[in-house]
């Protein structure tokens, strides 16, 4: 059976050129970058080259990139590091209700440590209104952190405008750009961000490699103390192969970005328009302002997990949303914040495409998906309606 991977927001395979670039650093160039002899110097040079190309992907300076182990680490580092570095100025932080758990749970941790957090609402498309951000600012506000693009509903936020407000008010601004960097053009200058998180495996780099952009001159409290790695801001012997891989992946992403976007956008639009032809299937997130390869839906009367199982049976791999909804069977906080009724939120499915996705695959998907919906609805206890399971506090939207 042919396997069709449609979960590129979860992770991506390594680009063959990335693997090629990494291999020597597992073998002959194994030196510790801090060592003063030749193998150490080789490793150090490799890291600095990777730093330059990683920085270049977001139009930053090389010395503004701190390598981390993941997007989650970058997000934790940004929130905790900036909060603790600025707690004498104030103890108020603003985030949104649709942040990734690495932001949400870091914010909850900070609340327990004496900070106050405002969780901003979003509209029905998941868009954060910059005017609401401005209203939420108090004299105590030290940090604003808003997601650049939601991996769950694909919506791209007006980060440049929010960044502009933060800059005018003199408040540090962070954006979690894990789902966007490498998938859409991200230029740090017009975004007005002081910090930005991203991860290599979102653009065909290795897992275990992430980065935090930190604007020159911004103070941050380290999460990990120890040696002088990453300018003393993140101790621990560097993961040299992963960093080299991230650098190579960034170089390729910068080179091929427009081509990748053009490719996935066409296929995504085809997928969306076909899926919406099925009765009681709703698109989640913004119809236009969304990640180019991202299609997310709620399907009425059936469970997301059931769809995933049947799709997997047909060789199609997709996701149903966040860990909350898929592992803990709790309605996804993101879907609830865009006004999805709780009974509909259970029917969430997310399909994410990549440069490798083909037209034939989308045709096959378009044929299989409605069949699976029909098959599941036939056996769904709710096929004739929700009865008293319906959450009438919100209304669905086509």
């Amino acid at each position, binding site marked *: 059976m042919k396997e069709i991977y449609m979960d590129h927001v979860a992770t991506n395979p390594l680009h063959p050129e990335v693997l090629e670039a990494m291999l020597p650093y597992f073998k002959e160039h194994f030196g510790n970058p801090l060592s003063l002899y030749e193998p150490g110097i080789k490793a150090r040079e490799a890291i600095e080259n990777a730093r330059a190309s990683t920085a270049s992907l977001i139009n930053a300076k090389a010395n503004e990139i701190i390598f981390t182990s993941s997007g989650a680490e970058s997000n934790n580092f940004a929130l905790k590091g900036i909060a603790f570095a600025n707690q004498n100025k104030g103890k108020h932080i603003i985030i949104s209700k649709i942040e990734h758990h690495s932001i949400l749970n870091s914010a909850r*941790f900070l609340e327990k440590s004496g900070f106050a957090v405002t969780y901003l609402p979003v509209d029905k498309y998941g868009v954060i209104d910059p005017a609401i951000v401005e209203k939420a600012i108090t004299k105590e506000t030290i940090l604003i952190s808003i997601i650049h693009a939601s991996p769950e509903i694909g919506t791209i936020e007006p980060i440049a405008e929010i960044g502009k407000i933060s800059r005018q008010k003199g408040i540090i601004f962070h954006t979690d750009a894990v789902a966007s960097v490498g998938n859409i053009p991200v230029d740090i200058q017009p975004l007005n961000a002081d910090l930005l998180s991203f991860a290599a495996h979102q653009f065909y780099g290795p897992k275990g490699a992430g980065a935090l952009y930190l604007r020159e001159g911004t103070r941050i409290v380290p999460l990990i103390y120890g040696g002088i790695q990453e300018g003393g801001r993140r101790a621990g012997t560097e993961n040299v192969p992963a960093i080299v891989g991230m650098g190579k992946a960034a170089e390729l992403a910068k080179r091929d970005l427009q081509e990748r976007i053009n490719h996935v956008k066409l296929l995504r639009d085809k997928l969306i328009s076909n899926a919406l032809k099925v009765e009681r299937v709703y698109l989640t997130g913004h119809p236009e302002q969304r990640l180019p390869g991202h299609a997310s839906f709620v399907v009425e009367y059936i469970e997301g997990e059931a769809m995933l199982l049947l799709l997997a049976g047909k060789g199609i791999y997709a996701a149903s949303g966040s860990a909350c909804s898929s592992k803990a069977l709790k309605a996804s906080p993101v879907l609830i914040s865009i006004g999805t009724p709780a009974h509909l939120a259970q029917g969430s499915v997310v399909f994410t495409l990549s440069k490798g996705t083909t037209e034939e695959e989308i045709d096959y998907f378009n044929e299989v998906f409605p069949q699976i919906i029909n098959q599941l609805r036939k056996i769904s206890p709710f096929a004739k309606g929700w009865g008293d399971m319906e959450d009438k506090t919100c209304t669905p939207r086509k």
Partner: protein
Amino acid sequence: MQIPEVSSKVQNNIQLRFIDKPIEADATTDIIYMMCPMHLLIIDQKTKELKVGQILAVLTDYDGALEDIPAWCIKTGNEFLGVYEAEDHYKFYVRKLTEKSCIDKET
């Protein structure tokens, strides 16, 4: 403005009950400092290890558990005995009433 109709199932979920003193439990799981959704995953896993009728204590400082753990009990058909508020954490008590768990997707 019309008040939205809330279904009986949703009303049933609101069953938070505080208790004055801790209960003797057959097993205790300490997930203090762990965040969402760890409490829902751990409670599911730990309940599976118990026999029907036994009591599990879940120690957590996560406020979301006040809503989630009673709701989890309703979904899975287990009994929520109450929550005791200790100095810096909550102790939730759950009696296992059934072998079934709605979170288990492996079967």
